[in-house]
């Protein structure tokens, strides 16, 4: 198979675009798609300081690599969840990547700062590990970006992540979550960082191929806690549909975004909605809709119920 642009040997076929690319043209394609997302969605500019949440996986390390290639100022933030060998390996990948490229890396260590790893915390509060992990990561991503003065927080969510999340929300008619499914969440009030997903135009397979051809050493091993996760089931179903009918994932997610944009003219903005319901958490000061934010509630419960020396 030959590259449709330059006729070199192709390394990846992309049926949804009826094309195939060699190493160089694949890198150009991925960078162009990310740049288009950043520009069209007004995510950030060259003068802004971007904090990229990294996990050691293909998406977040590729995002950091792409942003530097495109000339953006991007640093890294890693949350060490304390999941044994998995966390040790993923942290090592992040440290090697950032050191080799001279990228500033901020680390939050749960065992150090919360006094326990994610599995122990989930046991203490009797909640599913992935749910506690989501609460903690969202909290620390936002807090770190705001406290360190970054203009925006970027995550490596890709087209497959967003399409599978949309499928999950639609299957359960969780319409209250749909407003937050866009690639940009505004800094709607003080204490909220702007959050963006520059890889939303790219499929997971295209990013993995980018990582391999650009020699990005990422952790291939999956988080041991994700075994049996619903999101993997939704991805699998969407991949089956995509194989039979290329373009299904982008038609589903991009179609949803187009409909949302068309409806936006007749509905209050996300900023207006947020400002109507959010107020500072009395314990930590971060925005919340509840009396106390979910992070502070979680940590208070862990401290009350647990034998571990949980710090606040």
């Amino acid at each position, binding site marked *: 198979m030959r590259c449709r642009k330059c006729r070199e040997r192709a390394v*990846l076929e992309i049926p949804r675009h009826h094309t195939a690319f060699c190493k160089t043209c694949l890198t150009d394609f991925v960078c162009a798609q990310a740049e288009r997302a950043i520009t069209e969605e007004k995510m950030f500019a060259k003068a802004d300081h971007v904090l990229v949440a990294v996990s050691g996986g*293909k998406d977040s390390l590729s995002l950091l690599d792409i942003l530097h290639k495109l000339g953006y100022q991007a640093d890294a933030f890693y949350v060490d969840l304390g999941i044994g060998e998995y966390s040790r390996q993923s942290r090592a990948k992040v440290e090697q990547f950032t050191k080799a490229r001279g990228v500033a890396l901020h680390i939050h260590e749960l065992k150090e700062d919360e006094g326990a790893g994610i599995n122990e915390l989930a046991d203490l509060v009797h909640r599913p590990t992935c749910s506690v992990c989501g609460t903690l990561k969202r909290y620390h991503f936002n807090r770190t970006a705001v406290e360190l003065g970054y203009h925006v927080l970027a995550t490596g969510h890709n087209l497959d992540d967003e399409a599978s999340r949309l499928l999950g929300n639609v299957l359960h008619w969780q319409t209250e979550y749909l407003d937050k499914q866009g690639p940009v969440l505004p800094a709607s009030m003080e204490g909220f960082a702007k959050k963006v997903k520059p890889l939303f135009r790219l499929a997971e*397979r295209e990013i*993995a191929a980018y990582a391999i051809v650009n020699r990005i050493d990422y952790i291939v091993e999956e988080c041991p806690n994700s075994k049996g996760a619903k999101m993997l089931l939704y991805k699998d179903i969407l991949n*089956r549909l995509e194989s039979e009918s290329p373009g299904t994932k982008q038609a589903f997610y991009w179609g949803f975004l187009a409909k949302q944009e068309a409806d936006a003219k007749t509905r209050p903005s996300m900023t207006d909605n947020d400002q109507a319901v959010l107020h500072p958490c009395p314990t930590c000061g971060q925005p919340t809709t509840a009396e106390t934010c979910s992070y502070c509630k979680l940590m208070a419960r862990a401290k009350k119920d647990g034998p571990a020396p949980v710090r606040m």
Partner: protein
Amino acid sequence: MKVLLNHPVREVEMKGPRRVRELLKELSLLPETVLVVRGDELVTEDDMLRDDDRIEIRPVMSGG
């Protein structure tokens, strides 16, 4: 050829020559969910694999 699979990590021996798409079919893998690496080079579905090749099947799905 030696074929390294992930999740869980294991190695299987397969007969060559055969095309990548035939290898994936025999392993019951959906092409959309994996990448195939020969040595350290990505190969496409119509590439031919030989007996002395070392192949890695790299899954692309992640997240929970």
